[in-house]
């Protein structure tokens, strides 16, 4: 019986140590066919190590690593993936068309050069040497190299770093098109709005472990905080003294209040300042949720260390 829900990429309790440093400490990850999973986490959380394991660049010290049910170091598994890494200095004197032709030659049924160039928006760059391109153009070419082999799974490591807003939007559109064609994507990014815009699921890592996995909405809901903004004459100290308020600051005359009990705080605000204007209440964004989650994990880790000491 076929199992349609078997993950196409999987880490199971993966451990990777570099000397004293434990980069991955029992990491679990499952990527289903057709979805975009965003892997988030602060620097040093183990994202790059997780990706390197799934690409077969390094071997795990313990746990399982599978790509299409196989060892990623097997070339048959890697013929089904496309890769965009953070820093790969491609041969500077080769032209974009030549780089695409070379990379496409590794795959069984690659896209045509025209199709690849069209999708990645590099049609006008094919004759240019790689070294003569701007940083953003080079990223687009790297994206083109990732998709030229008609992969079933794309690894995109910080794909939009160094791109301007328009280029970023175009890349997002191209990623959505690939997803619509049934391609799966594993994305790592520092830009939370990128995860919000693209991801079906997000997975948050710190200290070599996954601390949260779920939809973007679920991640947001993990954090009950709300943001209140308003124009008010109330002093910061007054507002801060209210027990329900977690944080308050003033930016350009506007009060920014963070609280878990928005209704109570709004009532207090309206009672205390009859001239209060432009009241807004928002659920905290992915950024706050992310900060909150990783800070909790940091505190837990500190406590562990203190207890151990």
């Amino acid at each position, binding site marked *: 019986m*076929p199992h349609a829900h078997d993950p196409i990429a999987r880490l199971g309790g993966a451990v990777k140590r570099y000397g004293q440093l434990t980069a991955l400490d029992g990491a679990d990850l499952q990527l289903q066919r057709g979805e975009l999973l965003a892997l988030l986490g602060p620097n040093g959380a183990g994202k790059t190590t997780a990706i390197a394991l799934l690409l077969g*660049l390094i071997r795990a010290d313990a746990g399982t690593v599978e790509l299409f*049910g196989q060892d990623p170091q097997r070339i048959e598994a*890697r013929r089904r993936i496309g890769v965009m890494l953070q820093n790969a200095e491609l041969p500077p004197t080769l032209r974009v068309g*030549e780089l695409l032709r070379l990379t496409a*030659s*590794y*795959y069984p049924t690659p896209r045509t050069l025209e199709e690849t160039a069209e999708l990645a928006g590099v049609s006008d760059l094919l004759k240019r040497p790689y070294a003569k391109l701007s940083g953003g153009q080079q990223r687009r070419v790297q994206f083109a190299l990732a998709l030229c082999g008609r992969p079933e799974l794309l690894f995109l490591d910080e794909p939009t770093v160094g791109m301007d807003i328009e280029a970023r939007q175009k890349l997002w559109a191209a990623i959505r098109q690939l997803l619509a064609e049934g391609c799966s994507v594993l994305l790592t990014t520092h830009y939370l709005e990128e995860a919000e815009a693209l991801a079906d699921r997000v997975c948050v890592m710190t200290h070599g472990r996954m601390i949260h996995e779920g939809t973007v909405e679920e991640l947001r809901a993990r954090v009950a905080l709300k943001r209140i903004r308003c124009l008010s004459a109330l002093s910061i100290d007054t507002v801060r003294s209210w027990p329900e308020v977690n944080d308050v600051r003033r930016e350009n005359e506007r009060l920014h209040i963070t609280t878990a009990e928005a209704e109570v705080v709004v009532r207090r605000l309206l009672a205390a300042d009859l001239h209060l204007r432009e009241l807004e209440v928002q659920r905290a964004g992915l950024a706050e949720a992310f900060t909150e989650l990783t800070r909790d994990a940091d505190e837990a880790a500190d406590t562990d260390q203190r207890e151990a000491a």
Partner: protein
Amino acid sequence: METVMSVNESTAPVMPRSRVIGAYLEEARSECLRYMRAPGFMLPIMLFPAMFYLLFGVLMAKSNGADAARYLLASYGVFGVMSPGLFGFGVSLALERDGGLLTFKRALPMPPGAYLLGKMLMAMVAAGVVILLLLTMAVTLGHVALSPLQAGALLLTGMLGVLPFCALGMFVGTLIKGQGAPGMLQLIYLPMSFMSGLWFPLPMLPKFLQQIAPIWPSYHLDMVAMAAVGLNKEAILTHVLVLLAFAIGFLLLAARRLRRNG
């Protein structure tokens, strides 16, 4: 587990053999193209030994007779062939490991041998150019009389003899990343050439150095090159086998390191 494998493998596209060969050819083509467009990397590697030969093998050795010039053609030929092997292979590998290109290629489904074969071909071409340069200088300026067969044998010796040095360069390239590699390779290249009798004939070196000379692959290649130009009448099979073993040994060591550490 059985079902997992069957599901995932049944939908995998099959790579026909013709496309695998195509990937090898594309890799070799790209490797040649990129270095031909950036002659600043390979040119000094090829010209350095040629200049050495011109100074010491042709200009300085004029008074010593034709046999001396013939002798120096063989030993400087070996000296010249080592350079594209050690530097062409070792330095480019060290730089590409540093710059992330090798990591990228390892993540891609590039046939593992294609990358090495591309670089190997490049080194063989460069070694061929070095020998042709030296041959030209030897015949025109040095008045060395060589039969076409001898010239061909020397060319073949150079183009195949570069391979053990490719393997050694590759191994060093896996040990050292980036800018440190050229210095380290010089530390191997120059002393090893001297101690193999490539600059001064071995009998002129201290007894101890003469005794340990068979450790160095360049000594064995020199013996083969001497035979090619007609100065060594002894059997060369042992030397060829030593060179072969040397090449395979370092290739395996390097491949192991690359697979483990990238």
